[in-house]
């Protein structure tokens, strides 16, 4: 018996052991996705990543509701306001539910920078489902209820958990709204890469010959181009007067130009190796049509690989958007994205005095890391039949 078969055999037994006693039949009848899920479940980090990403996307979807403020609302009395301190114990030592003190703005007599002082006589409790800036959820449902904030109308001290930027907008709310753009750029970019990669990789792998040769050379040329200059060149070519929405789609398109090549190669490679599989030959001898072989035998065989490849390319897309927007050649205000927010950080003095405007950075890092962890877990689980 060959070593390879042996390994496979042992692996089969190993996988069998992942299920508790008495549930063998369930395991024997488990299809591909069930097995993938079982294997994925053993990857703790990936599961944590999945939860974190779930929360991030929840925030992105319900940004209006979870944000304490309108991201475009300028609080003129609170310019460059530092993150609000939350207290549970007041000056007299009594405990409360979390609250904030009222604030007084003054100015530094030398630099004219705003200085804020806590006024410990006024207490504003932090509440859930408080009324605040009016909004329309997804532009449809009007409301003014926010998940959390400081109630008490216009006179109350607003809650700025991450501070405000130089023109008095709440950084946290902007991060929440920015997630909408920054996290969806990846998804849409990946969707475009998916279609391109599957189509071109499929053509390449299935027809082979000259078509394959040409597509492969094109991929090679694209992958040799240096990323940032290429992005910059393409982004610079976008007309400035385009509406924001169109710029947004154009940017994702640019990002996906690099994304598809890797996927196309994966698809092609899998197709080529699958054509040689014994079970594909067996299917042909069973009288299955070429279309049925592709649909029933080959695509299910590499779908999981494609998902892995896609998850792997998401962080790149998020980083791409962030860097392009940071450089001012991607999205621009008034659109809110993490990259756009970081444009403020281009001024080193701003960063020095108001470091909280860098909050989008750890958020980007978190999102990218979580996608990487998720990708790792998926890669391990992708093919439950081989090691």
């Amino acid at each position: 018996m060959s070593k390879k078969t042996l390994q496979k055999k042992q692996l089969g037994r190993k996988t069998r052991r992942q299920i508790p006693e008495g549930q063998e039949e369930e395991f024997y009848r488990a299809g591909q996705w069930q097995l993938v899920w079982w294997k994925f479940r053993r990857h703790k980090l990936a599961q944590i990543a999945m939860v974190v990403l779930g929360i991030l996307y929840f925030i992105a979807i319900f940004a209006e509701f979870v944000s304490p403020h309108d991201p475009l609302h300028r609080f003129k009395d609170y310019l460059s306001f530092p993150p609000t301190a939350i207290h549970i114990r007041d000056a007299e030592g009594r405990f409360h539910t979390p609250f904030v003190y009222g604030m007084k703005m003054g100015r530094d007599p030398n630099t004219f920078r705003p200085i804020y002082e806590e006024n410990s006589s006024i207490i504003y409790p932090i509440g859930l489902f408080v009324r605040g800036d009016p909004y329309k959820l997804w532009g449809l449902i009007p409301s003014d209820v926010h998940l959390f904030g400081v109630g008490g109308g216009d006179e109350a001290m607003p809650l700025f958990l991450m501070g405000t930027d130089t023109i008095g907008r709440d950084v946290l709310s902007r991060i929440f709204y920015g997630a909408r753009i920054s996290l969806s750029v990846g998804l849409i970019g990946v969707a475009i890469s998916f279609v391109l990669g599957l189509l071109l990789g499929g053509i390449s792998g299935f027809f082979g010959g000259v078509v394959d040769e040409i597509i492969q050379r094109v991929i090679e040329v694209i992958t040799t181009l240096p990323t940032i200059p290429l992005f910059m060149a393409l982004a610079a070519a976008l007309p400035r007067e385009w509406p924001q929405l169109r710029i947004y789609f154009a940017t994702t398109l640019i990002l996906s130009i690099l994304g598809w090549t890797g996927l196309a190669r994966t698809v092609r490679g899998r197709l080529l190796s699958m054509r040689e599989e014994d079970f594909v030959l067996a299917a042909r001898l069973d009288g299955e049509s070429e279309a049925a072989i592709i649909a029933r035998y080959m695509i299910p065989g590499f779908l999981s690989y494609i998902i892995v490849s896609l998850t792997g390319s998401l962080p790149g897309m998020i980083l791409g958007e962030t860097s392009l927007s940071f450089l001012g050649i991607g999205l621009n205000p008034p659109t809110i994205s993490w990259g756009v927010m970081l444009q403020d950080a281009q001024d080193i003095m701003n960063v020095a005095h108001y470091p909280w405007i860098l909050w989008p950075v750890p958020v980007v890092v978190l999102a990218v890391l979580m996608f990487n962890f998720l990708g790792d877990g998926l890669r391990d689980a992708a093919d439950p039949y081989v090691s």
Partner: protein
Amino acid sequence: MSDHVLAEIKNLHTYFYLAEGVVRAVDGVDLTIKAGRTLGIVGESGCGKSITALSLMQLVPSPGKIKEGEITYYQTIHKTESASTSNVIEITKLKPNSRAMRAIRGNQISMVFQEPMAAMLPVRTVGAQIMEAIMLHQQVNKAEARERAIDILARAKLPNADRIVDTYPFQLSGGMRQRAVIAMALSCNPNLLIADEPTTALDVTTEAQILDLMRELQQQYNMAIMYITHNLGVIAEMAQEVAVMYMGKIVEQTDVASIFRNPLHPYTQALLRSIPQLDDVMARAGQKKRLETIRGMVPDPYSVLPGCSFHPRCPQFMEGVCNEVEPAVIEVEPGHIVRCHLYASRTTKARAN
């Protein structure tokens, strides 16, 4: 040479600790390897024969561990032509990556695998790899090492050894690669060669060549061979002593003639009857016949069966005995041991497990 003991394995247990459970790959193995002799270990896949060999080399892959047992290696040091002393090395007490262990591996004991490519780096020439092994264990310069490499390749019957020395492994055919690997294994005159299915991937005619070569080199170098295979035919040709393994245990052990002429353990008997025998086929002259089979299949490696591990498949199963009491090792005849309740009364010397 004399029948002196080269290595001894006592009560070896090598377990694999996996998330899914413990695999008792080797579960109480005793073996004695005598200098200059060939010990064959035969069994089906997963019976623990390869892991026994890897344990001997301290090369058990993670998450496997030698849980219990002793492996002793008796190293002969030639002080002068006539006088020599023996140096006792407790292999199980050495750290797998220690200097002492590395000095044994490759130098005293070396190994040949089923896949010759697995033992060779594809990016370096055959000669460079053999020279490296020689220079690692012996104080010779590059030119001398090269000369020895050519010499050893020639002894492994590789044609044009002085040219082969500069070729890359992929330029050789399967049989030639296996010869080169054997040459590499022999480059430091080991006292023990562990051969793990070295001919399984080869064709019969090539297999015959390699077996012939190994026997010849064994004579030349006076080394012991531990030959691991599932092929009973190869065992018959190569081994002087045979151990049959089933689920991590040696179920029967004796000299090669007895194992084929007078097999005692029901597993050995069934194994021998389940392979097509050419003489038998020829004697039938065209008449078809069914083979005898062993019912069922090898159990899941995670399972621990009470009593004898072969009992669910055994044709001579005794209810209440085989499935409850673990059989002891019984020496039925001098030098013929078996682990089976059938022979409990015929024992000349029984020892508790």
